[in-house]
């Protein structure tokens, strides 16, 4: 079972879990803050809308198309 750090908090998830799912397993589900300051969450679930973009290990990634890996650091807040 991979263990990641979600906004600084440790979280263990099942193998094959997407980062999008981890956002709700370990937090309130939201992934980013919009240009007008609204919190947003994964929306299309399939790599199109880009609402789910988070920072994983310092790189911008789509949470819905990224699998959780052991030791991964995920940041949903700028």
């Amino acid at each position, binding site marked *: 079972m991979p263990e990641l750090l979600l906004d600084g908090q440790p979280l263990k998830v099942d193998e094959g879990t997407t980062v999008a799912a981890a956002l709700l397993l370990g937090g309130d589900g939201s992934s980013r803050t919009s240009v007008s300051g609204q919190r947003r*969450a994964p929306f299309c679930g399939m790599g*199109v809308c880009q609402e789910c973009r988070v920072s994983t290990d310092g*790189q911008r990634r789509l949470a819905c198309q990224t699998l959780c890996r052991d030791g991964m650091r995920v940041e949903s807040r700028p």
Partner: protein
Amino acid sequence: MKVDILIIGAGPAGMAAALAAAPSGARIALLDDNPAVGGQIWRDGPQAHLPPQVHEQRRRLAAQSTIQLLTASRVIAQAGPKQLLVEDAACARVIEYDKLILCTGARELLLPFPGWTLPGVTGAGGLQALIKGGLPVAGERLVIAGSGPLLLASAATAQANGARVLQIAEQASWAAVAGFAAQLPRWPHKLLQALGLWHPGYRASSHVIAALGDSHLQAVRLSINGQVKEVPCERLACGFGLIANTQLGQALGCRIEHNSIAVDNWQASSQVDIYAAGECTGFGGSEKALVEGAIAGHAAVGDLAAARHLWPQRQRWQGFARALQHSFALGEPVKQLATPDTLICRCEDIALADLREHGGWTPAKLASRCGMGACQGRICGAATQVLFGWQPPAPRPPFSPARIDTLLQLGQPE
């Protein structure tokens, strides 16, 4: 990297194309932006339950030494004639091909309505995809709205994972839904599927009016057959049918007809050596995708007899596709859900009132930055096409956000 056949998209169509082309001995690369093959319908994950047929297909793909799987990879740009620039998590590379088969599938049509940006609101097929990837929904109250059979499929997945589906609002009329159901016996397997998915909360001539809540979804306002109703819930899944992913085909110069990549009997596009198969040539389900993919794979390696042998089967599933597209045509009410302050562009937070006055996509984009955000107009471009009839512009590279070092590879000799 150089291959004989490059296939973009590893859903049913792409997998079938690869397996059909493999016996020829051609070197094949099968590329997809998801972490695993399977496409939309056979998306893998901790909460996915794949049919045995899919495991068999995957085994066959893995067993072919001539097929290279490139998952978690996306196409960024055309690098030259018969060359695509591709990026994965670690690196970027140019892939040179002799034949290209586009199996880029479809995405959901997501239309704006008040509150659609609230966390808790997702697409309908989108929710299904998120659940398969491990999104917990047990104990959540869920409303599903929009149009098409995907609403029932999404409800079934959510329910199997412990959500309580309170209502399913289909915008099409009972007459349209009944007309579709009456045709299903022509495809008995589809009829059985539909019966298995039936839900008592299903209502026709019904649609979402607004998602309500401050920072998170708390309730949904619905129009159920003309009656307004508020339903408290934690989640709303809303999708208005499917639209073909034609961007890459369009960028490569393939002719687009009826919002799909136009193909001939061999699944060949208007561009030499570029084929297309599956939902990107028009949505119609996995059976159509499988047979079209196989025809494209056979045709691309010159086995025309094997391709032709599959024509009757394709014709049968294209009939199903037509019934589907006809029955769930969008009515006027769902094109008018957004109010003046509803955000249309979710990337740049641009409201309906700030867009409509511009009268077209290009002036709107110049004046407001609509469509210039991270999704590159995929969501708002499709929405403004339905809402105002604006024609989205031809896609320009990079086709998806890319790293600088990837873009630097453009123009560099191999």
